[in-house]
């Protein structure tokens, strides 16, 4: 066990705990905050593995933007302090969710375990330059595809917002 | 704000603050440097106990009901045999509660006997609110801090006290009346009566006025002298006063002058 192993396992467990708490807590805003823990620990995992830039972008985008958006939405709606039962799901619902989650985990494990190495964590520092070259060279098409997807959703959001604005003009 | 005026406005704001910063600050560092208060500042109200007749006007007019007056009547035995006994008000208590006072000055205005004065003194804060109730001894001490009233205008009529003190003695009634009449006639006959007065501006009454001011201006000297500034004003003015006939005739003269 090297220090890297310990750090990796620690961050991994933290991420797992954060994720579990995020889906099980009855406090809605706490769920968002546990999500911060989970995503932050994931960034820690990336950092341990030497992917510094990925870890930082994870923080910047997920914690700094996505979670902030989630919190913003929660604040706009009525999110009570303390546990709320309004959004509790039925046992059947939970069962289905658990089965689907278990299936996903099994699938991921089946794919990832065979390619996992001997077990010792090795830190492979990727330089930012190499990462950039990869991202915009080898993976340019998926990257562009993603941006197309985002553009489409942006236009859709705009369309929805504008149609509301036009119809809502009378009562405004 | 119009769209066009936006940018200049932004820079103008920056300019104003920068200009202010370049100028010296206007702060008075109070406990270290005395504030420069205007002469009619309303700091605290001083009581000249001798002038107060316990008439209660101030207490009744005070909007806050924060003046407390208690008194009793004393009988003064007749001075001449067979004469009438007189009654006199004696002031037992006079207190102003500065925790309530709103410094409106109504009490000072209504007092018909010049017993209340404004003093610019303001440093009487207390740790206990009850200590803000100043009894008449404390109110009397403030008299030393009352500033001298400002000098009258050059052409203002004399104060009522001066006028009455200047009146010729009553006893030789007919002679004085004749003098009065001639004075009035001559004054009315010549247009520049008013102008005559500045020329005779060194009349004793006027020349005398700075003197009591100087006396009151040094409050430490005046500690034993509890007389009000107004009486001080009148008293020294009285003795050297030669009868001056033109003065009582003044009010009727003024309208004439305006018509001419």
């Amino acid at each position, binding site marked *: 066990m090297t220090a890297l192993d310990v750090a990796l396992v620690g961050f991994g467990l933290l991420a797992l705990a954060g994720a579990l708490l995020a889906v099980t807590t009855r406090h809605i*805003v706490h769920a968002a905050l546990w999500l911060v823990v989970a995503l932050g620990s994931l960034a820690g995992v990336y950092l341990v593995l030497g992917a510094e830039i990925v870890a930082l972008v994870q923080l*910047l985008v997920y914690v*700094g933007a996505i979670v902030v958006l989630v919190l*913003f939405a929660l*604040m706009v709606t009525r999110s009570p302090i303390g546990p709320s039962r309004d959004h509790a799901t039925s046992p059947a619902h939970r069962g289905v969710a658990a089965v689907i989650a278990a299936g996903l985990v099994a699938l991921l494990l089946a794919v990832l375990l065979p390619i996992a190495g001997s077990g010792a964590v090795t830190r492979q520092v990727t330089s*930012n330059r190499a990462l950039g070259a990869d991202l915009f060279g080898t993976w340019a098409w998926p990257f562009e595809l993603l941006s197309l997807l985002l553009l489409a959703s942006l236009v859709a959001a705009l369309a929805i917002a504008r149609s509301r604005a036009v119809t809502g003009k009378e009562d405004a | 704000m119009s769209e066009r005026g936006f940018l200049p406005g932004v820079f103008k704001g*920056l300019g104003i*603050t920068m200009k202010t910063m370049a100028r010296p600050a206007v*702060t008075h560092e109070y406990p270290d440097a005395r504030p420069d208060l205007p002469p009619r500042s309303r700091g605290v109200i001083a009581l000249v106990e001798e002038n107060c007749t316990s008439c209660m006007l101030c207490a009744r007019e005070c909007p806050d009901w924060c003046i407390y007056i208690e008194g009793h009547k004393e009988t003064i035995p007749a001075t001449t045999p067979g004469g009438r006994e007189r009654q006199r008000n004696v002031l037992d208590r006079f207190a102003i509660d500065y925790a309530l006072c709103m410094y409106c000055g109504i009490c000072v205005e209504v007092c018909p006997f010049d017993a209340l004065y404004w003093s610019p003194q303001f440093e009487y804060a207390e740790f206990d609110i009850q200590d803000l109730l100043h009894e008449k001894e404390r109110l009397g001490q403030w008299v030393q801090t009352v500033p001298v009233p400002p000098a009258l205008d050059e052409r203002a009529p004399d104060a009522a006290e001066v006028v009455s003190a200047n009146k010729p003695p009553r006893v030789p009634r007919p002679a004085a009346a004749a003098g009065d009449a001639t004075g009035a006639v001559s004054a009315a006959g010549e247009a520049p009566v008013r102008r005559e007065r500045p020329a005779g501006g060194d009349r004793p009454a006027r020349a005398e006025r700075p003197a009591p001011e100087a006396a009151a201006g040094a409050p430490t000297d005046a500690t034993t002298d509890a007389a009000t500034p107004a009486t001080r004003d009148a008293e020294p003015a009285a003795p050297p006063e030669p009868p001056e006939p033109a003065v009582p005739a003044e009010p009727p003269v003024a309208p004439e002058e305006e018509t001419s």
Partner: protein
Amino acid sequence: MGAAMSVWEVVLRSVAVLAAFLVLPLLVGFMEHKVMAHMQARLGPMYAGGFHGWAQLIADAAKFVQKDDLLPTAADKGVFRLAPSLALIPYLVALAVVPLSPSIVGADAPASAVVVLAATAVGVLGGLMAGWASANKYSLLGGLRSAAQLIAYELPMVLAVASVALAAGTLSLTGIATEWRPWWLLWQLPAAFVFLAGGCAEIQRPPFDMPLADSEIVFGPYTEYSGLRFALFLLAEYAGIVLMSLLMSVMFLGAWHGPWSGPLGWLWTILKAVPIAFLFLWFRNSWPRLREDQLQRFAWLVLVPLALVQLLITAVGVVMMR
């Protein structure tokens, strides 16, 4: 890099960063006291410490320590307690990676420009948590506004940093400052403007202090705080000014470039940061607060297009110079 440092060096660097983190915000805070006072034709603090009230902020700290640490009954206690630290610590992390000279830097990270951006973004989370956990309508409104503001101003800031990073060909702050040339002042001027405005909004200083807006929603997310926790928020605000000024100095003003930059480089970096810090104070005293809609309009219609145009200019410049 981590392995190359001895334990002592790590301790020394941490202590140095912590000291800078505690002292520099106090200096800026005192500067604010004095600048604000004189811009309003006042003198400001004059007593604490004797000479021109230099110890005023220390006295303030002593006062904050003595104050009662209030906790609203309806508040979400854990989140409420945690929020001030979450607002403060990211700035500490960010300050650690800002270089004062090529050799004087708390921790030289290869992507330090992204570190500071990520850190400031996380820092705003503290304000959000405080706003929600206080169980107070003013705080909630403040939290909402800071979330909206963060989302709007994060993007132009990232774009502005991307522009200099592109120009320098590196994501490291040390690298950016090393590559800096005087004519970048002109080339990167729009980016500098965008960064200044975005930074001002990020640390919620006037005129972008809609989330705090003391004259309308009391103090936004900080309304319910008192004592030390409130002091932590205040410290975070001034640490924010320090961070933004240093970043401006490093990324846009050439940090240690100047005469005798060898031994006095760190001094140059700080000297260039001081006018920027002064700018933040000056803005606060000169301009009224932007309304929420003006704020969003400014971010999306002025800053974002400007940053994109700047990115284009930078890209063209970089390609031409190849």
